[in-house]
């Protein structure tokens, strides 16, 4: 009897987690709409969605990695570096498709190296990727001589500006990745392995799971996602900007953590991440629409991150005290 009650209570608790986040999202949307009618206009929402794509796919790429107790904060500089790389190669007369392939390949290799070093030498992920982050930012600046390198092409311009059913085309890329990651995490054996590793890596290892290989794969895949994000970035802005990814770590990590993935790993889902991305984007966009100076946007984002993480911590402590 008693046990049954406990189990049911836990289930309720978990369900309410996502719902609370969703309610928070709606409250924030209502708040910004009341503050400024322009917030809820088609033009603004369409811009917001477009801006959300890059944060969104990076957060999605980070989701399985963080569930499996890995971490990478170098994805932003990977986006800058590959963007610059593609633009420089394009200006040297390489064909567009070749540039894109080389760019994505570079990002994949970066992710692979991150994973290989972290897993083979048991390094602390945040420290190692802090290192790669600064190396890549520097390389991007060296390669571009610290200027944005233009890369205007018809194909990318088309991709950046056209809409389908009034929805920007780049948003479909995000939707594609949402479905892909949801499918992988929910229906495949790989998804299950990721959750088993996250629950307890030692148990996973002693069940014969190749923990290191799976994690290296996830780092590599995040690299691939960074490559794709870089292409979208170049398409939207028309340049390879060496500073494009510098400020990405905060919104992306905030989104993932907001979505309920703790640094301790184990739990989390694609939907949590997506709501996290929505909240982060809405705050960013809402504050921008209010014509506040841009420094404040970052401040609000930082505050929101601290607030939510402390709320999760307080709740976890309460739960464990019981």
């Amino acid at each position: 009897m008693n046990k049954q009650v406990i189990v049911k209570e836990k289930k309720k608790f978990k369900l309410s987690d996502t719902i609370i986040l969703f309610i928070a999202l709606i409250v924030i949307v209502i708040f910004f709409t009341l503050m400024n009618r322009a917030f809820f206009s088609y033009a603004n929402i369409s811009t917001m969605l477009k801006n959300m794509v890059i944060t969104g796919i990076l957060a999605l790429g980070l989701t399985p990695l963080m569930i499996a107790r890995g971490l990478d904060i170098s994805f932003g500089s990977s986006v800058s570096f590959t963007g610059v790389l593609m633009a420089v190669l394009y200006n040297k007369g390489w064909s567009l498709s070749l540039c894109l392939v080389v760019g994505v390949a570079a990002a994949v290799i970066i992710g692979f190296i991150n994973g290989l070093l972290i897993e083979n030498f048991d390094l602390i992920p945040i420290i190692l990727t802090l290192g790669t982050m600064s190396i890549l930012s520097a390389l991007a600046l060296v390669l571009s001589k610290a200027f944005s390198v233009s890369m205007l092409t018809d194909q990318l311009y088309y991709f950046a500006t056209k809409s389908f059913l009034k929805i920007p085309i780049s948003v479909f890329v995000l939707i594609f990745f949402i479905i892909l990651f949801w499918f992988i995490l929910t229906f495949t054996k790989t998804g299950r392995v990721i959750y088993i590793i996250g629950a307890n890596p030692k148990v996973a290892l002693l069940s014969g799971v190749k923990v290191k290989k799976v994690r290296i794969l996830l780092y590599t895949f995040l690299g691939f996602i960074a490559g794709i994000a870089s292409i979208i970035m170049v398409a939207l802005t028309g340049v390879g900007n060496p500073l494009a990814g510098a400020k990405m770590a905060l919104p992306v990590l905030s989104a993932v953590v907001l979505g309920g993935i703790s640094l301790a790993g184990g739990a989390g889902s694609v939907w949590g991440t997506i709501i996290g991305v929505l909240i982060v984007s809405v705050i960013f966009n809402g504050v921008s629409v209010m014509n506040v100076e841009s420094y404040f946007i970052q401040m609000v984002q930082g505050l929101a991150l601290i607030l939510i993480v402390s709320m999760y911590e307080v709740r976890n402590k309460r739960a464990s005290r019981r």
Partner: protein
Amino acid sequence: MVFLDNQKIKTNEYLLEMKNITKNFPGVCALSNVSINLKRGEILGLLGENGAGKSTLIKILSGDYFLEEGEIYIEGEKKVFLSPAESILAGVRVIYQELNTYDSLTVAENIFADNIVRNKAGIVNWKVMFQKSREILNNLGSNINPNEYVENLSVGGKQIVEIARAIRQKAKILVMDEPTSALSEKDVEHLYEVIRKLKNDGVSIIYITHRIEEIFIITDRVVVLRDSKKVGEKFTKDTNKAELVKMIVGRDFSEQYKRTDIQKGNIIFEVKNLNYLDKIKDVSFTVKKGEIVSFFGLLGSGTHTLFSVLFGDKKKTSGEIFIEGKKAEITHPFIAKLNMLGYIPYDRKEEGVALSLNVKQNITSTNLEEIGKGFILDRDIENIKASEWVKKLSIKTQSLETIVNNLSGGNQQKIVVAKWLERNSKIFLMSEPTRGIDIGSKAEIYNIAENLCMQGAAVLMVSSELPEILSVSDRVIVMKDGRIVGEFITKQTTQEEIMHCAST
């Protein structure tokens, strides 16, 4: 008045009295009505197998565990320790097997760690600290330099530093938990001298050990615990080794559980000259189909390490493993899994089950390859397979979706077994499979092991419970310091013989 005088004499007789101590943990009784006392300047030996209740008793004395039932008197005064700090203040000091020295600091800093000497300006007074440290060490007959860094000392030296700290804290009761288990012979001799000096100075010592010989070298009196109860108390001069061993191992278990005779098949598992760093040395043995072979050894004998090396969790330094006559290079648990090995680790909650996952996710975690075709996880197959094992092993759970953390220890252990049954393993490595589970579940685990053997599997088991070893297994291999030091057919041996082999 007369009454008062009597009281006074009585209380002065004992420095420490622990009366009727009882301690229960959820589902387990760790201590039942145990009383011990200790005179000034007396050395009391405390004996018992792993899990007999020795460490629980000490942790209550040290304030690590809260005393629920029973009373503690120190110098006749009733004490309630709410924290280790209060216990230290009352003059009790425990020196654990894993020493608590600050290795990157000097000897003097260690001795004064909790009470650094300062001058009026609040600056550390190194001179006084050095001199006082030297004084204490000299009194202990040690010539360790107080300015030496502790990391440069031997284990024995570190122990002396801890004792010196205890003396500096004016400890009246010193508890030593297997102090000689990691010492060289020379250090052991020195430690004995130090202990005798302390005794002369009126310090009382509780001396915990697995080595029975030590009891006769150093103690005045000895108390034996078994199954959370005090089963014997003797003056050392009135007893002998055989009697103590008998008290430690206790009743004859073999009549309670009789296993059926199982036909033995060919050799399924063979290990040749296995080495792992300096932890496993030159280990060779064979196991036949249908056999249950136990591994026994005292703390640090390497039995658990041996199993993690065999399963590929630790990489062997050299040696060969043959499975059904074929050489196998087991470098990762994944390869062990492919070679039909299954592993039930010692630490169930940290290594055996994923506590935050549910029953079916745990059971199928070893065998995802067969849960559906290709990449897709087939939930119907998963449910069928998991519910089959839940039924076969009678795992008591609300549903297949119940989070494993909510199950009892016995049921969690059955899930670990189910993981490897699902995988169709043929060679089971079980590290203390019945540790911390209730008697009913223990019997069920034994039955599962027996059934496995009937189907041609082989079971290797590490156990620290000799009665269990004798009643469950066919053979027992005894290890000490990473080496195999003996092998017995369980039908033809006794607990005393095995214990003797493991400790000498």
